[in-house]
């Protein structure tokens, strides 16, 4: 795994004297996040399931099946590790009061690193206005609630499409992801579940067993962490990067007993070579993680073609070309998964990053249009959008800018590559087949572009 980068502020305010000073001055006090380790329980304590109706009952029953201690009524004094609000049956904004206030009554005793998860339905134009108002209200409420949480706790929501049961594989997989420590740096997000497709894994500790995954940009940073997490989850991993990164790439591939494939993703035959390698060596290809990316930041007023074009070529055009090669090959049909790395810059924009944001916005568009093409094969395509992640790329930022950027999220710190990798692994899993063309932000609920 990647070494933990130095966030001296975070260390300082979690030391004895530093914590006292920060408390006195009212400075942000980010809590060191806890990440998933193999063998960890899904949640480290009881979970309160709020909401009435059959969906709430079904979710509560499912949690019981996962050996989770489930409460249906708030018990004052209990340190809840999780708080689940099943709001699918709310039909009027006034109906939010009951569950919202009951949730509020236990927030102060939510355990450190606790999890709040809403389960709701999307507000559609075809809904009765009051129903749509209630459903959209859940979004606003959740995003605000997430900003109230402290001590590494997060709030996220699963938005299950009309007609899809709340116990559909992808809805439950999203619920597990948000409850677990795998989602440590995912905060304030509402993830849509579009269909009932997907298959729950036989072994929750190895959901990718028997799957062959390719990760581009794998030599360092987020890509290297993705390789590690996919391998931990049972996948056979092919690590791809440019030949110049061969030394680091070999180390990444060898430590997971995978294989290294050196190529430039913009090469015309990149897709063909990826297929050839995976089929010959590993007998198939199931998961394609497009993570290779570059920046050549410049204000648009000063932009030149030699800075603009490579960014679009590597970050999005290469993905399109490789996807086309995979989709037309006939060999990418066993519940295939594409997971692409977008960026919050591609959603919210960032001064000096027109080319980068164009490419990352492009990634989001690409997965939206590619996913439906994979649906007939039980497949899907989705993106993750990292916010501020501690990598070599962000280590090059000016020190003060970096310190400020870290605090600009609800979790008041940068994420780690492993946080993005966990989201990728979740979207790559067989259970995520019902999440079609979506973007999952891994940004600690960054204040920018929410």
């Amino acid at each position: 795994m990647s070494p933990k980068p130095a966030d001296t502020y975070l260390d300082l305010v979690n030391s004895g004297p530093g914590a006292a000073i920060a408390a006195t001055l009212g400075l942000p006090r980010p809590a060191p996040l806890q990440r998933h380790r193999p063998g960890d329980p899904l949640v480290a304590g009881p979970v309160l399931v709020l909401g009435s109706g059959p969906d709430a009952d079904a979710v509560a029953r499912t949690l019981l099946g996962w050996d989770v201690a489930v409460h249906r009524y708030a018990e004052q004094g209990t340190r809840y590790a999780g708080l689940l609000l099943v709001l699918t049956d709310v039909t009027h904004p006034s109906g939010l009061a009951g569950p919202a206030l009951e949730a509020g009554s236990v927030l102060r005793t939510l355990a450190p690193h606790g999890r709040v998860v809403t389960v709701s339905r999307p507000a559609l134009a075809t809904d009765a206005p009051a129903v749509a108002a209630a459903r959209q209200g859940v979004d606003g409420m959740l995003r605000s609630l997430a900003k109230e949480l402290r001590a590494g706790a997060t709030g996220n929501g699963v938005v299950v499409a009309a007609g899809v049961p709340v116990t559909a594989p992808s809805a439950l997989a999203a619920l597990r992801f948000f409850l677990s420590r795998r989602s440590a740096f995912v905060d304030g997000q509402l993830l849509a579940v579009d269909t009932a497709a997907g298959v729950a894994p036989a072994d929750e500790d190895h959901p990718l067993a028997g799957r062959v995954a390719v990760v581009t940009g794998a030599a360092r940073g987020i890509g290297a962490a993705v390789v590690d997490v996919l391998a931990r989850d049972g996948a056979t991993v092919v690590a791809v990067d440019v030949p110049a990164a061969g030394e680091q790439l070999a180390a990444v591939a060898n430590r997971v007993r995978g294989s290294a494939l050196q190529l430039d993703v913009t090469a015309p035959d990149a897709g063909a070579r990826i297929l050839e390698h995976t089929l010959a060596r590993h007998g198939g290809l199931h998961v394609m993680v497009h993570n290779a990316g570059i920046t050549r930041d410049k204000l648009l007023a000063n932009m030149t073609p030699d800075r603009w074009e490579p960014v679009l070529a590597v970050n999005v055009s290469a993905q399109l070309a490789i996807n086309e090669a995979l989709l037309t090959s006939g060999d990418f049909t066993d519940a295939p998964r594409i997971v692409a790395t977008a960026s919050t810059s591609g959603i919210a924009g960032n001064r000096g990053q027109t080319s980068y944001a164009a490419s990352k916005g492009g990634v989001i568009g690409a997965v939206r249009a590619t996913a439906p093409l994979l649906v007939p094969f039980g497949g899907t395509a989705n993106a993750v959008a990292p916010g501020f992640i501690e990598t070599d790329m962000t280590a090059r930022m000016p020190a003060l800018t970096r310190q400020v950027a870290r605090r600009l999220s609800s979790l008041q710190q940068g994420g780690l590559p492993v946080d993005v990798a966990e989201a990728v692994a979740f979207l790559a899993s067989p259970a995520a087949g019902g999440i079609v063309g979506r973007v999952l932000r891994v940004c600690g609920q960054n204040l920018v572009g929410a």
Partner: protein
Amino acid sequence: MSSSPRPAYVLGGNRIPFARAGAQYAGASNLDMLTAALDGLVARHGLAGERLGQVAAGAVLKHSRDFNLTREAVLGSPVDARTPAVDVQEACATSVETVVSLANKIALGQLESAVAGGVDSASDAPIVVGDRLRSAILAAGRATSTGARLAALARVRPKDLAPVAPRTDEPRTGLSMGEHQAITTAQWGISRQAQDELALASHRNLAAAWDSGFFDDLVSGYHGLARDGVLRTDTSPEKLAALRPVFGTSLDTPATMTAGNSTPLTDGAATVLLGSADWAQAHGLTPLASVVDAEVAAVDFVHGEDGLLTAPIYAVPRLLARHHLTLDDFALVEIHEAFASTVLTTLAAWESDEFGRSRLGLPGAFGTVPRDRLNVHGSSLATGHPFAATGARIVATLAKALHRRKAERQDDEPVRGLVCVCAAGGLGIAAILEAT
């Protein structure tokens, strides 16, 4: 163990980009570089944790502490630590020798898989103390009294304290390899222009191979170096012609050998993965070429009239005669470019009727190598020449090129490649590969 030989295949290779001595790899040891090349080979072929049959490699400039260099590289790599290893040294022919000996073991059924390789660092060369100081220290160590110890050390004179750097000069002649080759170059009347043209072709061919991505699955970046550091993409006939001769300047004939048409001192490491057909299939690997046969020759450059680096001139005809082949039967030919004139004298000797009759015992000239089949992906002039690593570089490059040619052809005609590498001590090795 099977009773009759079976094919042994080249399944792939990996090397690090070669660097000019004292440049990017100045801080890397032979062990570091060989381990890096092995790590990349293991990663490319998905062999982490595998127990391989044997790894054989070596270095020409070698520290005495590296007595088990290859085994140490194996222990530092992700292959199963139960993989045996052996050190081999045959000057610049070292890693062709390792390819051949391991291929022979595979052919005999003694091994299923193997890695051949070589490494050399001209930057991290071993420096030792002089013989007088060494003998005084050893005598002091043997002494049983303080007086005798002091007496032994008292023999040491200030000039004895100067360190001795390794030399690649021939011990029996005291001449450097370049001076030896300058004599041969003059004997054959090889022109400066012909040498510069060959050097230019080497740079252009290597640059084109890099640009086309040919080395994507043969080379892994190391210590920030992504391409061979010796390669000059901007070289030109004019630039090469402007260089001053550095060898043969004291001969009667015009000196023609420059830094541009001679290989520079280089750091680097290279490996080749070998295996049986069954082993390759079980690991999802595609055989690129079989190792058909090899021949080692030596010449008497001390007393006889042959030049130091001319042994391949004899090795190849003997090897081809054994298989009833001529030079025309080879799609690709690799002649190690120790110096441009080494290649040109080799070709001239093979094209000479007189030499063919009198020295090779043939009815006439041995044959011709068309230039479009020679060193088509560049050779040592452009790539550099870390002595023991060069053979493995050539074998892996040639095997891939042959496999590609075979795939492009739609027939069953054999696609053969020839490797020949000259070496210090008047040695030379030649090998035949055939595409699969």
